[in-house]
C-alpha cells in the first residue's frame, strides 16, 4: 500500500435518531419499535392535508448538545427547509430538514487509530425528520407489493456531516466508534446501528498522492455495523484503485454495500441524482438561538470521553488501556469513581471492576449499574482486601455469591468467619504442619527448586481454606527453609 500512488479520501455522513419522548413535529412517540404498523401516527406525521408541524424543543436542545460536544459553532439564526422528493415512505412528499442555515457548523472530533491521534472535521450538525419504513415480500425487485408503515415517520433525526478528512477505512471506523461513544455518552442517541437508530453513509474517492483536488466520489450506503463500514470501504477503495490503475474513469454514483456478497453494488448514477428543490419551510418560523440558551446547554454537558480518559490516567495513575475501558460508558466511569471515593486505591478498584466484576456482568448480560453489587458494597469488599482483612481468593468467591444473591459481600465474610488469618502463631502452626506433610517439597526447595515453595504455600492455603495471609506464609516458609548462600 505504501507504494500506491493514490491517496484515499473519506468523509462520513451519520444519521442519529434523537432520544426525545415525542416525534420532531407532533406529539406521537419517538420510540416506535415493536408497535403495530401505523399505530404511532397522527394527522401531522401522516402528512394529512391541512396538518401543520410544530417544532419539538427537546429535539433542538439535543442537537445543540451534540453540536457543542463536537466543538461546533452555533449561529444565532437557523431555519428549517423542505427537501422535496417522491417516495412512498415520505408521506408529505418532502422531508423537513435544514439546508443552508443549519443549527451548527465547523466542529471536530478527536479519536485514536492504532495509537495515533486523529482529528476529523465536522462540517455541520443539523436536524431533520425520519421517514417511514417500507416492507416487501422478499426482495424489493421481485415483491408484488410494498407496505408502508409510518410509525417511524417524523422521528427526530440528526445528521452529522463529516469533512473528507479520513484517509483509511480504519480511520473511518475509528471516527465512527468515537462518534457513537460520544453520542451515547451525552445521552442523545442509543447507538444501535443494527436497528438503524444510528446510520452511516460514506463518501470515498481516490486522488494522486500529493494533489489537492478531490477525485470523483462514490457514496456508499447500507452499512450497519462498524465492521461493515470498514469492509465496505476497503472493498470500495480496492475497486476504485483497480479502475484508476488501469487508466479507467469512475462515474460519480451511489453504491450499496451487500453484506451477503461482501461487495458494493451500483444503485444510482449522478445523472439519476435527485433534484431536491430545497426552499424555506413556510410552516415554521425561523429559530433564533439565544447565547444564554447555548451557554446553558454547554454548562450542562458532561465531561466527554477523551477528556475523561486523560484525567483517569493522570489523576488515578491508571494505564491507558484501563482508562480507556473505564471511560467507555459514563456508567462505568461513575461506578469506578464512586468506589475510589470510598477509599479504595484506584489501581485495585480498576483491576477488580474490569476483571472480576465485569466478568460476572458479562456472564449475566448485565452492566455494573444494573447488577446487584452496588458501588458501596463493592468498595466495602475491596477495602477488606486492601487492609488484608480478606484474601483475594475469599473476596473473589464471596463476590460471585453476592453477585447472584444480592447479599453484601463484606457481611458474608464477617458472618462466615472468612476474614484473613494474619496471626503469626496460627500461621506458624499451619506452616509446621505443611512442612511435615510435604517433606519432599521442602527438600526440593532447599535443593534450589524455587517452584517447590508454591506447593508448600498451596498446602497452607488449603489448610486455612484460603484465609491465610499469603505474604506471611511465604515469609515463614522461607525462614524455616534456609538455603545455602540465600
Amino acid at each position, binding site marked *: 500500500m505504501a507504494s500506491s500512488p493514490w491517496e484515499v479520501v473519506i468523509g462520513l455522513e451519520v444519521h442519529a435518531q434523537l432520544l426525545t419522548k415525542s416525534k420532531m413535529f407532533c406529539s406521537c412517540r419517538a420510540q416506535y419499535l415493536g408497535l403495530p404498523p401505523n399505530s404511532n401516527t397522527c394527522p401531522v406525521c401522516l402528512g394529512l*392535508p*391541512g396538518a401543520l408541524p410544530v417544532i419539538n424543543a427537546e429535539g433542538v436542545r439535543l442537537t445543540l448538545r451534540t453540536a457543542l460536544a463536537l466543538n461546533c459553532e452555533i449561529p444565532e439564526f437557523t431555519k428549517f427547509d423542505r427537501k422535496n422528493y*417522491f417516495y412512498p415512505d415520505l408521506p*408529505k*412528499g418532502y422531508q423537513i430538514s435544514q439546508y443552508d442555515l443549519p443549527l451548527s457548523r465547523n466542529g471536530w472530533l478527536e479519536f485514536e487509530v492504532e495509537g495515533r491521534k486523529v482529528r476529523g472535521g465536522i462540517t455541520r450538525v443539523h436536524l431533520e425528520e425520519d421517514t417511514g419504513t417500507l416492507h416487501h415480500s422478499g426482495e424489493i425487485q421481485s415483491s408484488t407489493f410494498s407496505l408502508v408503515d409510518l410509525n417511524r415517520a417524523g422521528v427526530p433525526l440528526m445528521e452529522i456531516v463529516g469533512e473528507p478528512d479520513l484517509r483509511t477505512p480504519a480511520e473511518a471506523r475509528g471516527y465512527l466508534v468515537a462518534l457513537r461513544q460520544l453520542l451515547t455518552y451525552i445521552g442523545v442517541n442509543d447507538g444501535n446501528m443494527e436497528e438503524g437508530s444510528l446510520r452511516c453513509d460514506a463518501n470515498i474517492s481516490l486522488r494522486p498522492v500529493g494533489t489537492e483536488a478531490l477525485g470523483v466520489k462514490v457514496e456508499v450506503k447500507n452499512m450497519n455495523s462498524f465492521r461493515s463500514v470498514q469492509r465496505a470501504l476497503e472493498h470500495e477503495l480496492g475497486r476504485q484503485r483497480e479502475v484508476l490503475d488501469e487508466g479507467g474513469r469512475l462515474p460519480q454514483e451511489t453504491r450499496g454495500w451487500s453484506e451477503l456478497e461482501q461487495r458494493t453494488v451500483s444503485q444510482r448514477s449522478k445523472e439519476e441524482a435527485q433534484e431536491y*428543490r430545497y426552499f424555506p419551510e413556510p*410552516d415554521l418560523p425561523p429559530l433564533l438561538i439565544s447565547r444564554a440558551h447555548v451557554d446553558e446547554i454547554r454548562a450542562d454537558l458532561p465531561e466527554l470521553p477523551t477528556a475523561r480518559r486523560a484525567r483517569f490516567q493522570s489523576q488515578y495513575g491508571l494505564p491507558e488501556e484501563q482508562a480507556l475501558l473505564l471511560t467507555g460508558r459514563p456508567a462505568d466511569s461513575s461506578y469506578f469513581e464512586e468506589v475510589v471515593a470510598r477509599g479504595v486505591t484506584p489501581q485495585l478498584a480498576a483491576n477488580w471492576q474490569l476483571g472480576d466484576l465485569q466478568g460476572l456482568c458479562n456472564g449475566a448480560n448485565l452492566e455494573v449499574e444494573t447488577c446487584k453489587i452496588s458501588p458501596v458494597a463493592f468498595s466495602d469488599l475491596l477495602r477488606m482486601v486492601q487492609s488484608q482483612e480478606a484474601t483475594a481468593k475469599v473476596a473473589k468467591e464471596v463476590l460471585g455469591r453476592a453477585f447472584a444473591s444480592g447479599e453484601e459481600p463484606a457481611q458474608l465474610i464477617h458472618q462466615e468467619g472468612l476474614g484473613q488469618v494474619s496471626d503469626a502463631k496460627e500461621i506458624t502452626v499451619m506452616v509446621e504442619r505443611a512442612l511435615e506433610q510435604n517433606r519432599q517439597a521442602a527438600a526440593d526447595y532447599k535443593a534450589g527448586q524455587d517452584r517447590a515453595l508454591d506447593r508448600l504455600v498451596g498446602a497452607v492455603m488449603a489448610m486455612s481454606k484460603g484465609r491465610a495471609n499469603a505474604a506471611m506464609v511465604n515469609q515463614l516458609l522461607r525462614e524455616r527453609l534456609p538455603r545455602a548462600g540465600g
Partner: protein
Amino acid sequence: MSLLEEPIRELGRRLRDGEISALELTEEALTRIEQLDGKLGAFLRTTPESARAAAMAADQRLRQDPAGSPILCGIPVAYKDVLCTAGVETTAGSQILRGFVPPYSATVVDRLSALGVVPLGKLNCDEFAMGSSNENSAYQATVNPWDQERVAGGSSGGSAVAAAARLACVTLGSDTGGSVRLPASFSGVVGVKPTYGRVSRYGLIAFASSLDQVGPLAKTVEDAALVMTAIAGHDARDSTSVAAPVDGFLGDLRSGVRGLRLGIPREYLEVGLDAQVRAVFEESVRTLEALGATTQEITLPTTEYALSAYYVIAPAEVSSNLARMDGVRFGPGAPDATTLRQAYEEARHRGFGEEVRRRVTLGTYALSSGYYDAYYLQAQKVRTLVAQDFDRAFAEVDAIISPTAPTTAFRLGERTDDPLAMYATDILTLPANLAGISGISVPAGFAAGLPVGLQVLGPYLGEATCFRVAQSFEDAVGVWRHMPPLAVAAS
C-alpha cells in the same frame, strides 16, 4: 322574508327570546339550499343530519342558559371545502381528494363548533383554491347569483354565493391572493382577509402556506366581525399563528371614520379599471369623505411587480404542498402502473386539473437548481419591497381604499383560455397577501346590475380599523339589504 336575511345579532336576540328555534332556522336554510342551489352550485355537499343534530343541541343550550350562550349559538354556517371537517368528505374541489374523509377538523371549525354553530355542509371552490372564477372546480361551476351566466369569482366562490343568496348566515373561505375578497366583491357580500397569522391555518388544506388565511364571508360587516372574533387568535398547532390579543373588532365597530386618514394608491387606479367600477369607487370616496374621513393619494410603487412575484412564490409552495397527493393514500391512484414513477405520474395526471398542473409545473421549475436564485429568491426580494411599500404608506394613513377588483363579474368561460388575464383579476388583492396585512371587501354599489366591492386594507393586525371603516361605509350606503333577484324570489 326569510330568517336568513336577518343579521346575526337580530337572529341571536330572537333565538334567546325563544321567538324562533335554531332547528327552525336550520330547516329554512336547508330548504333554501334545496330551492336555489341547483341553479347556483355553491354547495358540494350538505350535511342535513349533523346540521339538525347541532341545531337541537344549540336549542337546548339556548333554553338552559339564554344569556350565557354564545352569540353564534344556533347560527347556520358553511365551510369552503378546503377546510377539514372530521367525518365529512373534504375534497378541496379536486378529484385527487375524492372520498377523503378527514379524521380531524380545522381549528377554525373546532372553534365555531364549540360556540354551537350549525354546519350545513361544504362549499365549492376552485381546485385547491387556485383560481379567480370558480371554474377550476373538478366538480361543478358555481355561478354568480346576480347573473347566472357570469362567474361567482374565486376561489371561495361557493362561500360568497352561499352568503349572497342567504343559504347560510355566514361562511368561511380562504384568501391566498384575493380568494375571499374577489368573490365577495363579485357576489355583493362582505369578505375578510385577516392579517397573516391572525387565524389558524391548522386543518386548512394548504395552497400557498406563506400567503393563506381563513376569513369569513357574510352579508354584513358586523356578522363578519362576530365570526372573526370567534376564529381569530393564537393556535399552538399553527406555528405561524400570532399571539396577539383579539380585541376591537366589535368594540370599535361604530366609532366612525371622522379624522381617519384614508390612502388611495395611485397605482391601483392604473390597472385598466372598468369605467363603471371607477365611478362606483369615486362615489365611495365621496361617501367616506362626507362621513368625516380625509383621503389622500399615496403611492405603492412596486405594485406592478407584485403579480409576477406572487405567481412565482405561490406556485413554488404549491409544488411542495401538493406533493403529498401522490396517489398512495388519496385519490383514485394508478392501479395499472408498473413502476413507481409511472404510478405517481398517472395518479397526479388523473387527479389534478389543468390549472393545478400548470402551477405545480411553474413552481417546480422556479425551485429547480439553476433557477432558484433567478425566480424564487428574486420573487422573495420583491415581496419584501411590496411589504415596505405598505409600511411607508401606513406611516401616513390609517387605511388604504381601492376597488376590490378592476371589473365586475365576467362571463363564464371568458377568461378560461387566457391564464394571464385570469391571473390579472387578483391584481388589487394579492399585494396584501404578499405583505401579510389585513383587508376587507365591502359592497359599495352596482355597475350594470352587478355588485362592486370596496377594498379597505389595514396595517398588520389592523383588522379593527378595516372593520370600523367598512361598518361606517356600510351604514352610509346601505346596499347590503339588496339581495340577488333569485334569492328574493325564494324568500
